[in-house]
């Protein structure tokens, strides 16, 4: 059970700032939960080992909003988003990084929330499907999915949309092959791929203003 989480400062591969939960403790922001086995550590002390089920204070920046909660260090970002914060647009498919239904943007990079510990995301900017909405209106990628019927059951769709969004943030004018690769980490059992590719192509136009963005108004 002893899950050693060390402070990992700096940029990891892919651009996420990975910060162990002990970092926040080091700057004195930690309120130790009732069940915590964690002794209060002085600033800049050697990282201490916390039990995996010890409740720890966690602050996440999700869709531009700060969320502070008590979390177990082993909780995934997926669990925290869905079951603690209540943002259920992000879906659970496999919980082992195979299907992409849980894809969110972490500092603009598409990531599987099921393979990401919530603690790792402190200090990062997290965007979920809900964060793509423009008020009550669908965002451009969502609108493109609507117009091209780029889904069937809709369960993999949030992940597909986040994969396209992430791709277009990095590369606003991708080639068809780049689009295919950009969404190749997202499974769709209904097999809506053909329409997903069309929608992604259309999303490029909507995002760059070449297409007419006119719908999605509730």
């Amino acid at each position, binding site marked *: 059970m002893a899950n050693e989480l060390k402070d990992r400062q700096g940029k990891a591969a892919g651009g996420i700032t990975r910060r162990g939960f002990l970092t926040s403790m080091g700057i004195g922001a930690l309120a130790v939960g009732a069940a915590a086995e964690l002794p209060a550590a002085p600033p800049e002390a050697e990282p201490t080992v916390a039990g995996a089920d010890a409740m720890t204070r966690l602050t996440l920046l999700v869709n531009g909003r700060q969320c502070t909660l008590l979390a177990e260090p082993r909780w995934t970002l997926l669990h925290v988003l869905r079951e603690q914060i209540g943002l259920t647009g992000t879906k659970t498919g496999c919980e082992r990084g195979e299907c992409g239904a849980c894809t969110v943007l972490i500092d603009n990079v598409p990531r599987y929330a099921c393979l990401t510990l919530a603690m790792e995301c402190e200090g990062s900017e997290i965007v979920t499907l809900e964060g793509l909405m423009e008020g009550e209106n669908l965002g451009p990628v*969502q609108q493109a999915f609507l117009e091209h019927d780029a889904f069937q*059951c809709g369960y993999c769709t949030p992940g597909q949309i986040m994969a396209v969004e992430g791709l277009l943030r990095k590369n606003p004018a991708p080639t068809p092959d780049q689009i295919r690769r950009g969404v190749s980490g997202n499974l769709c059992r*209904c097999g809506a791929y053909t329409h997903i590719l069309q929608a992604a192509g259309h999303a490029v136009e909507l995002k760059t203003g070449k297409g007419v963005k006119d719908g999605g108004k509730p």
Partner: protein
Amino acid sequence: MAANPDKQKKVEAFPAPDPPRAGETAKLWEKTRFVGKPLPRVDAYERLSGSAVYPADVRLPNMLYGAILGSPHANARIKRLDMTRAEKMPGVRAVIGGTVPEANPAWNYRQGRPAREAAGKVFDSHCRFEGDAVAAVAAENPYQAQDALRAIVVEYEVLPFVTDERKALQPGAPLVHGEGNLVQTDRYQRGDVEKGFAEADVVLQETYRSACELHTPMEPHGCVANWERDRLTLWESTQGVFAVQSGVAENLGLPLAKVRVIGGYMGGGFGSKLQAGKYSVIAALLARRAGRPVKLILPREQTYLTVGNRPPCNMRLKAGVRKDGTLTALDFSVLGTGGAYPAGGTSLVDWQVRDLYSCPNVRIETTDVYVNAGPARPFRAPGHPQGSWALEQMMDALAKAIRMDPVEFRLKNVPSGSQAREGTPPYATTGLKQCLEEGARAFGWKEARQKTGAPPGKASGEGHLRRGVGMASGLWVAGGAMPPSTVIVKMFSDGSVNLNMGASDIGTGTKTIMAAVAAEELGMAPESIQIEHADTGTTQYTRPSGGSKTVPTESPAVRAAAIHVKEQLLSIAAEALKADTADLALMDGRVLSKSDDSKSVKIADLAGLKQRGVIVGIGSRAPDPPGKVVNPFAAQFCEVEVNVLTGEVRILRFLGAHDSGRVMNRLTYDNQVFGGITMGIGFALTECRILDASQTGKLLNRNWHDYKLPTVLDVPAEMVSLPIEILSPEVNTTGAKGLGEPVTIPTAAAVANAVYDATGVRITESPISPMQLCKLLSEQLKEG
């Protein structure tokens, strides 16, 4: 809500059709404003914004999280179950298992039918397949629930097992149930096959095997259970809320009225969510024991083990043909399995052989056996892709043997009626001929076939990359009405409309199609119709969404309900306008006089309607009239590129020509066609459940990493959907036949035939893996 207003303006405006005269059936629409158009889904906004709440998304106050401990063995008896440590774990609020008799009711896999000898308990002391439920817990969070599972101590008596159905009937094979592993043998015969073979110029025989395919919908199986005293509510990811209601009521001994099942959105099922699962009942048992709501969503791995599959199928087909292309005899035998409990292991595998082509002499024998593996469940066109895998490859081989084009050969054998049914009743419509002819034309079959070259084996393509084209056709056994179904359409005093139906929208666009049907009849935009569906507490009874019968069953019921509303509305308006109802028509929220332009009233201004508050229209679905068979037909064509050095198959293009009657929505129609083809590509090339038959009986590929679904990179760049739209009032009042299943039936065989065309290698065992293809290619080389 999500419609593009500019696109709406482009829709041609004309009044809604007149209601049928008393005693008459509604005629087919001659032209339509909404039905058949490429309309975006009415629930697209919800699904795309994240506001759609799927059962897995439900969060109730005070809710716990459940988890099930599954047996790690293919066959084992539980000697000792000790849950005391788990009960004391942090956050644990309920622990149940075989040692808690009040939380261990009987379990019947054959819900709605008498339990067979094989019936057991929810937590059975004899676990006959890996993953069968041993115990379950509910805790404050899912992590604590998993911790508690690990603290449960189970001592198993591990028993010998059989997981290979080909060995299940061998002498000395371990018995799954103690009375022999034979479930049943079914036989069918028409004509005289021996006579038929004697009349043939060519007789071929081949054995085929199709691998076990897993449904793996994106949303795992599961539910949220909540009790209010003795009344149970389940939010379940299901294709049929009423089937779950009756299954749970049956297994828990509750009256139907005390069980409410809410479906709403669901993340795919493909047949695996047609009934209640053990998980449904276990969630309810945990919730009752804890006195709190419980969410129980199966981890992906458990869905691989316990919630169904398209079982493996072993087939032998002997076929006779005359030189002119006339089929003279088909002799088909099948060995299959539904797993450890009766589950229709060979159900409908024979249907293509029995019914697709004209053949006077047919003999069939199917044998279903038990093995120590998870029970099968219906999987998109149950039995059909397996039978197609054999029959359509055989047709290809026969065509070659008599030097006839495969399309020509099939056209020679298009039947006039359904020979598999008593008295060979005619089909209400059959587009098999058009699917073949028009599909071949649109695909460029003849030209492509010439290019890939004859004889097969020296096919076109440079060096190690060989091109081939292949095709296959098919029909689906159902696709007409499966009543009963009742639909209610309500029009409120302001003219806005609510559509209430019990059917689930499993991703096929059911809601959107039904909204279009009601809109067509009421002359109003589909997106302004509010839909309530899939809730046993508030919507009307219907059968689960499956079998490609949802649209042909529900759409006439919706139409009837909308007509019922219209009749009442027009009589209210007739009074207000002092006109005859026959002179009135509905359009865009107004009632208009056809003869007098000055007479017109907004529905919202009708005092008579205000007074009533609401108009309730009821529509129901009767069975299709006897004497005609309503089935969809299909032909699919594809081109592949085979790398003969690596054995990789790349599919370059696919065309699906489908006769499913009226196209109800061109967007969702094409999406279904492409989706079915994509699933068929998985069946052809990658999907295969692998059980460790010799050592442990355990599943070896229990996740999406090891069990490969098609990804976006596996989908052909060129996908074409070619609707063969044959309209007939004999189909039903909307003219729609089923689409969801036929689109995946011929796909795998078409791929196999294309691979043969490219390489000259006949692959009779699915999937066409690079390893298998390389082996066969090297054998071909050796044989010269």
